[in-house]
């Protein structure tokens, strides 16, 4: 398919339309999907934050429970009152350490815990105990940037009721972890405090519960009930709660059931989900960028787009391939037409040569034949009168070969105005000199030119004048005679008029005779009459033919009658009777003219006889064929070829014969017969249409329906229905009659 062609443009246009449609549908699907995903993601985030909150509620409950347990331990209660430690107090401290409940049984939320006694500045935990707070703080645990004094005062500054200090890095041994310190004073519920339970909580646990899914740009934060930020972080890691801030939005209605809002933070759309614990009033916030939520949809869209693109590309490739494949027979056909044309072109000179050969050497019986022959051979038939000239070439020794010499001569002749040039044999040729040219001058000119230009000796004979194409043959014969004469007389050009006059001859050439015989055998009375008229005119109108010879002419003509009878296939008796009758009539005439006319009349009547015989033969043949067809029309294989085969005729002849004798073509007639039969069967109404189709010689019901419609203007079904209706009416009528 050419890129510029209409077909291509149309194809591309429809292709793009489908593509655009697919993309529009795809986008609609994407928007719906993203909406769905968005809602689902928010629901999921709400669920997970809710879950995280419940988790921390449970953990804080554990911590509170443990703090309560620790604060009620007798060792703790008694140790609270100590200011100066006695020796026995160190034993107590040892026992206290050993009795502190373990904390790491269930989870890693609690990194450690200890009790800090304000009076003695001693601390006790399951893993360490000391009255030397300064030394212990530096060695066992230390918040970065806070010395033991600052840490003590930050604890001692107030009474704690399960409040927390924001996450900060704490070093212990060799490692550093971020710790949220959760503190409760002992005894609880008083305005003063004597000791604190300090739980060191792993900040990483907040991150583990809230961090997943926040990704680039997102953050989480945990606030205690007073609103201070305890823990915060983003996708890269924890953030310092002291410096972390976020855009405040209306928190009204936030409760343990998480609330989600869409917020724009530094130009980005975010989903902010907030939940506040009913248990301790802490709130948990997560801010997730919308782009993160929709990342899945985007990747799904990308995937779908790739699939669509691949599908369309494949479709394009496939359609191109199919178009090419389906166009192949058409291409082949075009190629073979080209081949045939070429072949015809190649054959044309041969056809022309064959036509000219016949024209010059044997002639055509009728002008129409000559004309159609000229048409086929694509040769211009000399339309008007002219003369025929023949030429013989005598190549010089060592010169060009005769064919070449002859070709050169013909070329020259063509240049001089000759037409219908035709080579005959190796060294001879014939051509027509139009009436407008002087034949002898042209011939002389040709001879000279040949001699001068090619050094080829030529001798030309100029024949008699012809009136139409049918006369060319005799004109040619005359030209040959003139050529023979020229050779004999040593001239280079001779004309029929140069031949010694044959006054003693009548004019009834062999050619005329054979033509006449042919015409009679064909039964062509008109043409035969015309020919006889011509012969009569040629011999009897002028006085140059002696009367004796005219008698002979008549005799010769009568010979034609005899010849006919002997050739005709009649029985000997009727032949002899006919010949005797003719003889009597012929001899009854005295004059040559009378005898000629009698013979002429006899010949014309013979023409009639032939014609009538022929006609009866044709009628018989036609009746035979019709009977055959009527008998065999139900055979689906019945066709022209089969009939032609049956009757020993060629298909072409049969086709013409049928048309001539019956008036319509074989196929039309066959269809007519079959439809008639079908109509009858339909009328009978016994067979379903499908069976009728087979019964009248059709294999394809579609063809049958079409033919029926063509013949009767209605479809067989409609016809059958109407017949039904008619029959029913009739039945009704007949049924009704008795009641009348």
């Amino acid at each position, binding site marked *: 398919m050419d890129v510029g062609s209409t077909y291509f443009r149309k194809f591309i246009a429809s292709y793009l339309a489908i593509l655009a449609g697919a993309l529009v549908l795809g986008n609609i699907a994407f928007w719906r999907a993203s909406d769905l995903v968005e809602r689902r993601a928010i629901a999921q985030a709400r669920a997970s934050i809710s879950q995280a909150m419940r988790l921390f509620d449970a953990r804080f409950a554990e911590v509170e429970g443990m703090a309560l347990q620790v604060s009620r331990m007798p060792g703790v209660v008694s140790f609270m009152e100590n200011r100066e430690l006695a*020796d026995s107090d*160190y*034993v107590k401290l*040892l026992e206290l350490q050993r009795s502190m409940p373990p904390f790491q049984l269930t989870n890693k939320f609690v990194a450690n815990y200890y009790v800090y006694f304000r009076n003695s500045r001693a601390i006790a935990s399951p893993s360490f105990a000391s*009255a030397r707070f300064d030394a212990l703080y530096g*060695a066992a645990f230390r918040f970065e940037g806070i010395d033991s004094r600052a840490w003590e005062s930050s604890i001692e500054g107030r009474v704690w009721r399960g409040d927390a200090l924001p996450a900060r890095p704490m070093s212990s041994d060799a490692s550093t972890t971020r710790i949220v310190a959760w503190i409760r004073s002992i005894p609880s519920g008083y305005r003063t405090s004597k000791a604190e339970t300090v739980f060191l909580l792993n900040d990483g646990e907040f991150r583990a519960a809230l961090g997943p899914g926040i990704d680039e740009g997102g953050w989480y934060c945990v606030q205690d009930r007073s609103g201070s930020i305890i823990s915060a972080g983003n996708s890269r890691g924890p953030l310092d709660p002291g410096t972390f801030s976020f855009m405040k939005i209306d928190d009204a209605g936030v409760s343990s059931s998480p609330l989600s809002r869409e917020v724009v933070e530094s130009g980005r759309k975010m989903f902010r989900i907030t939940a506040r614990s009913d248990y301790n009033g802490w709130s948990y916030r997560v801010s997730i960028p919308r782009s993160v939520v929709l990342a899945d949809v985007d990747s799904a869209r990308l995937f779908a787009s790739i699939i669509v693109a691949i599908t369309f590309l494949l479709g394009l490739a496939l359609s191109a391939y199919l178009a090419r494949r389906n166009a192949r027979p058409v291409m082949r056909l075009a190629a073979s037409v080209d081949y045939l044309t070429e072949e015809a072109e190649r054959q044309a000179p041969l056809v022309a040569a064959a036509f000219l050969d016949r024209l010059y050497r044997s002639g055509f019986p009728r002008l129409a034949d000559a004309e159609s022959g000229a048409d086929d051979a694509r040769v211009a038939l000399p339309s008007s009168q002219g003369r025929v000239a023949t030429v013989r070439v005598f190549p010089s020794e060592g010169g060009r070969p005769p064919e070449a010499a002859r070709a050169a001569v013909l070329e020259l002749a063509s240049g001089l105005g000759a037409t219908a040039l035709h080579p005959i044999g190796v060294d001879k040729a014939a051509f027509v000199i139009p009436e407008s040219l002087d034949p002898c001058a042209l011939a002389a000119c040709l001879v000279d030119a040949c001699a001068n230009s090619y050094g080829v000796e030529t001798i030309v004979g100029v024949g008699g004048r012809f009136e139409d194409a049918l006369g060319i043959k005799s004109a040619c014969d005359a030209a040959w005679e003139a050529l023979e004469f020229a050779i004999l007389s040593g001239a280079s050009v001779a004309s029929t008029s140069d031949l010694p006059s044959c006054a003693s001859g009548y004019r009834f050439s062999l050619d005329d005779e054979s033509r006449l015989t042919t015409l009679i055998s064909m039964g062509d009375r008109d043409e035969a009459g015309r020919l006889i008229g011509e012969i009569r005119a040629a011999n009897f109108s002028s006085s140059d033919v002696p009367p004796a010879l005219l008698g002979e002419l008549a005799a010769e003509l009568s010979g034609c009658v005899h010849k006919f009878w002997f050739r005709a296939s009649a029985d000997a008796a009727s032949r002899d009777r006919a010949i005797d009758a003719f003889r009597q009539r012929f001899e009854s005439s005295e004059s040559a003219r009378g005898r000629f006319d009698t013979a002429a009349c006899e010949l014309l009547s013979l023409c009639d006889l032939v014609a009538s015989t022929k006609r009866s033969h044709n009628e018989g043949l036609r009746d035979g064929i019709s009977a055959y067809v009527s008998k065999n029309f139900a055979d689906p294989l019945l066709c022209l070829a089969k009939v032609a085969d049956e009757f020993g005729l060629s298909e072409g002849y049969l086709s013409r014969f049928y048309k001539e004798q019956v008036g319509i073509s074989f196929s039309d007639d066959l269809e007519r017969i079959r439809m008639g039969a079908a109509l009858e069967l339909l009328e009978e109404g016994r067979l379903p249409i499908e069976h009728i189709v087979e019964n009248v010689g059709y294999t394809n019901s579609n063809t049958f329906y079409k033919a029926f419609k063509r013949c009767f203007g209605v479809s067989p079904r409609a016809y059958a229905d109407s017949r039904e209706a008619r029959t029913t009416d009739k039945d009704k009528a007949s049924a009704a009659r008795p009641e009348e």
Partner: protein
Amino acid sequence: MMKRALAAAVAALALSALPAFAQVSPAGQYPIVKDKITLKVFTITNGEDLNANLQTQWLEKKTGIHIEWVTSGQNEAKDKLAIMLASGSDLPDIIMPTNTAPIISDDQIANYGEQGIFIPLDSLIEKYGVNAKKGFKDFPGSKGQVTSPDGHIYALPTLADVYHTTLPQKFWINKVWLDKLGLKMPETPDELLKVLVAFRDRDPNGNGKKDEIPLTGRVNMYSSLDNYLMNAFQYSPGINGDDFSWLYLENGKVTFAPTQAGWREGLRYFKRLNDAGVLDKEIFINQKAQLLALTGDPNGNRVGCFMNLHIGGGVDLSSPRAQEYVALPPLKGPAGRVSADHPIKYYPRFLITKNCKYPEIAFRLGDAIMTNPLSDPSLEWITAVFGPEGQGWTRAKQGQVGLDGQPALFRDLVSDVPNQNISWGQRGPCVYPDALRNRQVADPTKWTNEKSLYDSTKNVYEKYRVSKTIPYMIYKSEDAEQLAEIRVNVQNYVNDSIAKFTLGALDIDKDWAKYLKTLDDMGVKTLVALTQKTYDRYNK
């Protein structure tokens, strides 16, 4: 034709199923296998990639054995191994439990060995164990430590006699303070008390504050009062999580030190120290971190004396204060001058499971690691201890001297720079005799912990070595269970009692009988009897 092909295929299959017999090279020859095979080895990691470990790669090249590691972190290793062994399926070929924190006890090994989970190595040792046999000969007692009550050996041990740990009860005294105050090294408990009082009162750290702590210690690592100080009154092997805490042999009889009369005298002395105000009252709860905080106090070192296996147990070794301390020879008390000997534990390091398809090859691998580096002049097998030459260790230069003053053989490149993934960190059953340890390059002018440990052990404590200790033994599993329960209770009670007697919460005269009664109720007799029974079997 078909039959012949089938026969060939069957033969090939049969061969492939038994490659171990076909491939393993004769004892002592390398590579162990020509065609590389893979063995799965379970061990503990601190997160390092043992596939990239240089010692792994060296061993693979040397032996032709590729190791596929199955690792676990230190914390969950014990549980993971227990689950693995209890299920008995999906076992690796080899288990290498490290000794930094033993994840399987001897009696567990014996138990699993009897169940057939670990295969007995006796016949393999006989056939292939050139190095194992030599090691058991070179390290007397080592074979006994790995021989299970059923008479089989299931584990190849590491053979490293860390010399200084054979006399672990050391007392470190601040020589700078002594010199500053013009005091002599004390020789008796009374002299020590005088020195401590001087430390308390005369501001030896010179910061103008009375913040000195004359004597302290901490829990574990031979840091408590019942170690060095108790030995002046009562022979005590101390307690270090061992099976024979405070148990020792008196003329072949297992004896429990805390119930002896000498122990009571020791307690009296401790009380005196406390009453004199020279004993750190937190000595019973101190952790290493607290000692480091006291010796590292920015206002001046606060500690006069402390007890520990080594100086690093109380002072930051990178601080110059570490060099202020010297070892105090055993005090001359009622029990004489005694430094209690401690037996060497040859930890099981190499166990082959029933799942191993190539027990011969696996054993050859363990036996190869057991090569004594000194048995080969090329020293090639130092690699089994420190990793490949060049990265883990180098040869000593001419003229360099070792810890013991002899010409040095090698320099250790990894121990001071941990986590380099060069060596296995002595994971395997390697052999590291003191004869080699003491030949590592030592700078005579530079203070190193290793050198001070060697010197103090050799020069200060060696001549007072008294060996009454019970060797490491493998208990029958039912005995082990019973003993474990008694030990926990007894250890806690004795430790608390030391604290209470010392701090005056219990009265040494009034409460002593009650103390003995409690211990008796706790099953000290059973403890002694079962240990005696096991020792008698062990001694046979």
